């Protein structure tokens, strides 16, 4: 496993320790590296865009700029849940099909920013076909709790690229 973990580090450059923003989706806790996070905003009205995959919820107006919103629950095949006052949009910078773009991720709630030491991060175990392990940078353990650390470029950036090929 050691070799595999290293391979992840080299390719994504973000597999190791650092500050992570953690958020909840159902019972699961996720984390993304803080350098990718632009801002966190509350839920707002989203304009649906036709001919896009289900997980593209639509677009919003972020201070005069139009950005797409990805509903992570749909993306991960989880059940939908009505939005409440804890529902958040995490705006991240990702590498899209045509360069850097800002994309909002719709999550249940934002938890905290944690410092994750390199030795607390394990490379993702083999889930077989049941879960998309290639989206995952590693599993972080904080105070006995497990955080699933995501590679946002893969989760979001690649789904944007997939959107385009689907349409074409």
């Amino acid at each position, binding site marked *: 496993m050691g070799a595999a973990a290293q391979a992840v580090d080299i390719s994504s450059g973000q597999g190791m320790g650092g500050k992570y923003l953690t958020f909840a989706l159902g019972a699961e806790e996720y984390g993304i590296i803080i350098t990718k996070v632009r801002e966190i905003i509350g839920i707002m009205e989203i*304009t649906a*865009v*036709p001919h*896009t995959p289900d997980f593209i919820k639509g*677009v919003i107006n972020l201070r005069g700029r139009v950005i797409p919103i990805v509903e992570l629950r749909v993306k991960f095949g989880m059940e939908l849940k009505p939005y409440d006052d804890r529902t958040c949009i995490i705006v991240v910078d990702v590498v899209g099909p045509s360069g850097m773009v800002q994309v909002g991720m719709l999550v249940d709630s934002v938890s905290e920013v944690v410092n994750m030491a390199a030795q607390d991060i394990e490379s993702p175990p083999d889930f077989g076909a049941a879960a998309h392990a290639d989206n995952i940078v590693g599993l972080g353990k904080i105070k006995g709790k497990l955080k699933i650390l995501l590679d946002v470029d893969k989760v979001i950036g690649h789904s944007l690229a997939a959107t385009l090929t689907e349409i074409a």
Partner: protein
Amino acid sequence: MAEDTKPTLTAQLDEMALKIMLVEPGDLSVVGELVVLIEGLLAMPEIASQPALAKMAAALGEVIGKIVMAELEDSAENYERLGQGIGLMQEVCRKQGADEAAENNFHTLLGLIGYLPGAGHHKLETASEPPANRPEPPPADHPAPPAPAAGTGETLPPRPRILESPPVETMDFLQDLELLTGFVGETLEHLESIEVNVLELEDNPGDLEIVNKIFRPFHTIKGVAGFLNLKSIQKLAHSTENLLDDVRNGSRPMDAQVVEVVLKVGDFLKTMVDNLSLVLKEGPERYLNYDISGHLAWVEAVRVGQGQAPPAAVPAPSPTPEPAAAPAPVAAAEAESPSPPAGKGPAAPSQKAAVGDSIKVDVEKLDGLVNAVGELVIMQAMIRANPRIGAISDPKLIKDFAQLGRITTELQKTAMSMRMVPIRQTFQKMIRLVRDLSKKTGKEVNLVMEGEETEIDRNMVDSIYDPLVHMIRNSVDHGVQPPAEREGQGKPRTGTVNLRAYQKGGNMVIEIEDDGQGLNTDKIRRKAIERGLIQESDKVSAYDLHNLIFLPGFSTADKITDVSGRGVGMDVVKKAVEKLRGKVEVLSEPGKGSLFVIRLPLTLAIIDGIIVRVGAERYIIPTTAIQESLKPLKENYNTVQGRGETLLVRGTVLPIIRLYQLFRVEPTYSDPCQAIMVVVEYEGRQRAIMVDELLGKQEVVIKNLGGLSDIPGVAGGTILGDGRVGLILDLAGIVQSHSGHLSTDNGGDF
């Protein structure tokens, strides 16, 4: 607008047609771009279905490769033939398959250039980096060049030459990339101003202030190039500077030779700087070490007053590779001066634009400002629309709100105007074009420009350049007659081409008018009948006939109209203008001349649209496409085979598009007689788009949808008055996807 971003075979061919038109003998940079386009064409997946086209493209690539390698002649005639070849390729592409006649013609054309299929295959890869591979024998070993093509008195510039030997210059100028980037940008600007000033000087040879204006940028280029250790550029700029200094202090008179040499040195410097900019983009391996000795010698010769002919003359007339000309200034070629007598060239505008103080601003910062101001305007509207605020009846608040409104409007106007630039620079490039063209064709043409101060969106400037070049070329090449013919018709010897720009009704209008022979209505009529566009018995107005020249394939293959150029149709111009959401038309009177009118929106950033509602969603339909909107009557609604729905509007049967079905949203009305039909037209096809309600007309700012693009039916987004995003409809996509889904989607739920 999805089709704009996705290059199709047709689009690629159009692009090639435009490029070939811009090629000048000796100008390898455009040829390089052409090669890239051909490679792109061959790499497209769609080409697999058109083997004939693929073969033609490959052959074309080979011919161009040979021209670059100097195996075939680098002459205007050959480019003209290539242009016709591309025209044939467009024809084949349009016909979607084998067209033997076109193919045979194509090969005949290539044969005329001297190409034999199968004889010595140069791969395209070689052609893509031609200059570096071009064999360049040492100049000293070869005799003087042959005399320039007889009769014309025209001299061709030395080709930018590249040394194969180890570079004299080390690449240490790459150490400070930021400085080099700045140098490239500034030098290109300097060169542009030099060109404009030289042309002005040609008309006012005694004006030392203009000499100074040319001298200074050369001096600056020399200085910075020296600092960056760009030795060739420094040397060339330095020697030209010396020449200009002589002119300035009166030790050498200002004459046509000086003008010629300074212009050509400017061109050569531009080639070198363009190469540097390529190096910056693609890495040091793209660096080419240009041979400046020819130009240096020429400048020196002119300086001592004997440089009657440029050092290198026309390329060898035979297809076999002839050694490049010796760089020594051989004055024997032509006794007379190659330049036309003073006053023959186009008159440069003598007016000197008053230039205010200005600073350069990063484009991104500017866009950020425009965005922020847009947001401010929306926020302000939202606050005012808040019912609680509305309930306050304080006169001071109302007054303050009015004041705030004025300030934000002013701010928005200013921010928008910062994106606008005068069209002057684009127009000024035409001076040179007309000058060169009139020299080449032996015609006397006077270019008169008006309204250079008219402002145009910065983003449109580049896109309008190519169509303008094409139309000016047409006017000079085919509109204005030769001097003798003009005199015979009782016209002044010198033809006039007017280039005008002005704003009218929210549009930018560009007019190109010549006093030449006008379009040949009869020929166009005959061709239209031949192509089945009109019937022999049809009475078609001259205006409608003239505007047929903008149809694809109408003026390409053969020279039937007086405006056909190098096998490039006016349809290319029309497409380029339509891409900018503009329109182009021609008015012509036989014997008196033609007037081309281009109407463009002032900016690409804003679109005039009707906001419509479908269920909870709002969409914007561009006003230009809308013909009318109506509530349909039951008797006008019909289904075809129980599936396709149609609406009868003024005797025309229009297919209905249920927008809610196409976009899968929940509508308020699914009964067409309760809903509203918006009749739109796209490329001659009319459709009735079914929506719930019309909400109003508004100018909206077009924004892209972040990482989402190429969505069928959606051209972009905009921020509506309440801060939410509204989608702008792309009628091209809607009309297309509708015809695709017709059989499955409209399962008569009415």
